[in-house]
């Protein structure tokens, strides 16, 4: 085994130009994957909080007795989809409205009666923030006694959900496309190395080497190309991150909050190794002894 590594590293050095070329290609491909992951990771961090902000307003019928309001509250509390409930009384609603209107609150002058309804502001659990469940929940609540109407942003619920789904799909497509590219690059490189060492391989076969013995150095070499490409990609990604957070954030302050996913430091080189080995395994194929 140590011999296979020796052969692989000798070949890495001997064919340094061709190997360097493919390391750079693999590195930049993996960098693109990284930037995608990086972008999505941060988008996820930002949008991850969106469902928590999504709320449903439940307006109560006018003049409900204290006890009836309590009934509504305890029924809502028992629901499995409810994360948070906040009661807003008639007076509070009016106070809030006045604050919102601010300078223009003369509109409210001359009102003797408070026309606003008491309400519950309800936050849903993350998993229920989508158009279908929100509509179902709203429908159920509306049928409860004492409820006047239920209001929520249908479009927002749908948008949050759609954003999440399309981000997942796009990242999967980018990842698969580039992974395929990396496999192809190592495939071609190892194929070339293989043909250059055709004579040597024929001799090895005549001396009684097994397929595994002949293959191992090529798999190691493919894996090493992937690994070095991965390390290169990681360095590139980190440089990009530093540039964005320290330089660009002077102009665009929000960039300062970007986070570098620490898992990338391991995931990227590991992805490189795996893709490199797959590429070289395909390149060598089945050996005829």
């Amino acid at each position, binding site marked *: 085994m140590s*011999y296979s590594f020796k052969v692989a590293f*000798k070949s890495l050095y001997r064919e340094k130009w061709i190997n360097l070329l493919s390391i750079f290609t693999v590195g930049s491909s993996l960098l693109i994957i990284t930037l995608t992951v990086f972008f999505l990771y941060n988008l996820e961090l930002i949008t991850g909080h969106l469902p928590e902000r999504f709320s449903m307003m439940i307006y109560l019928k006018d003049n409900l007795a204290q006890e009836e309001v309590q009934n509504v509250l305890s029924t809502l509390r028992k629901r499995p989809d409810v994360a948070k409930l906040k009661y807003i009384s008639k007076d509070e609603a009016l106070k809030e409205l006045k604050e919102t209107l601010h300078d223009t609150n003369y509109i409210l002058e001359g009102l003797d009666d408070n026309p606003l309804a008491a309400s519950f502001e309800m936050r849903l659990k993350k998993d229920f923030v989508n158009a279908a469940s929100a509509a179902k929940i709203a429908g159920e609540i509306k049928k409860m006694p004492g409820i006047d109407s239920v209001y929520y942003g249908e479009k927002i619920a749908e948008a949050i959900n759609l954003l999440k789904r399309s981000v997942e799909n796009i990242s999967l497509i980018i990842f698969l496309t580039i992974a395929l590219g990396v496999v192809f690059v190592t495939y071609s490189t190892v194929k070339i190395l293989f043909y250059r*060492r055709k004579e*040597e391989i024929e001799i090895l*076969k005549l*001396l*009684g080497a*097994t397929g595994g013995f002949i293959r191992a150095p090529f798999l190691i070499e493919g894996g090493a190309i992937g690994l070095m490409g991965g390390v290169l990609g990681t360095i590139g990604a980190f440089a990009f991150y530093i540039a964005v957070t320290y330089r660009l954030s002077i102009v665009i302050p929000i960039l300062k909050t970007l986070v570098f996913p620490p898992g990338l430091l391991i995931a990227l080189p590991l992805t490189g190794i795996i893709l490199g080995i797959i590429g070289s395994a395909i390149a060598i194929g089945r050996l005829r002894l």
Partner: protein
Amino acid sequence: MIIFQNVSKYYDFHTVLRNINISIQKGEMAFLTGPSGAGKSTLLKLMYMAEIPDEGNILIEDLDIGSMKMSQIPLLRRNIGVVFQDFKLIRNLNIFDNVALALRIRGVAEKETKALTSEALKKVNLRHLADSYPKSLSGGEQQRISIARAIVAEPLVLLADEPTGNLDPGTALDIIRLFRDLNSQGTTIMIATHNRELFRGTGKRVLKLDGGSLVGEELG
């Protein structure tokens, strides 16, 4: 033990070996001689399965070559040491690694590999070239490296194809002496050569091949 039963080999429409019958005992040493193009190399190639016979049966030690699976070929070859007519050294490896390769292929531990390789290089008097590369060696030196590689793993059977073709008469006799030593330790040996000096006075069987047929046998 080497047994050929009615073996024939054709290339395209031209017969290279015709109805060959050979029986060589375990631990025997025999020569194969005949003019250039007689089929000596082809006959040896059939034994390590670089070529497949078109007719007949071949047995090497206890292995029946005809019914062997692809996956068993490496095992067969690891029981046979071959001195190739064209040496077949690996350009990218130095002399030491070329010889050591035969042991590494067999999974011999690195420490033992070092000791056995040095010993084999010493037997062919080329230990001082361990760090050189094949292309800087003379034809005779390359030939002796090829011999060192063939014997280093102590195979059951040794096949040598014109092993002294590039050697001066003195060195050639040294090599034959080396082969006889190995033979006396039990290695079955077959040497293809058209150099009569090699087998003269050895008292070993000499098989005569001409135009693809065995045409006789004598004692050297």
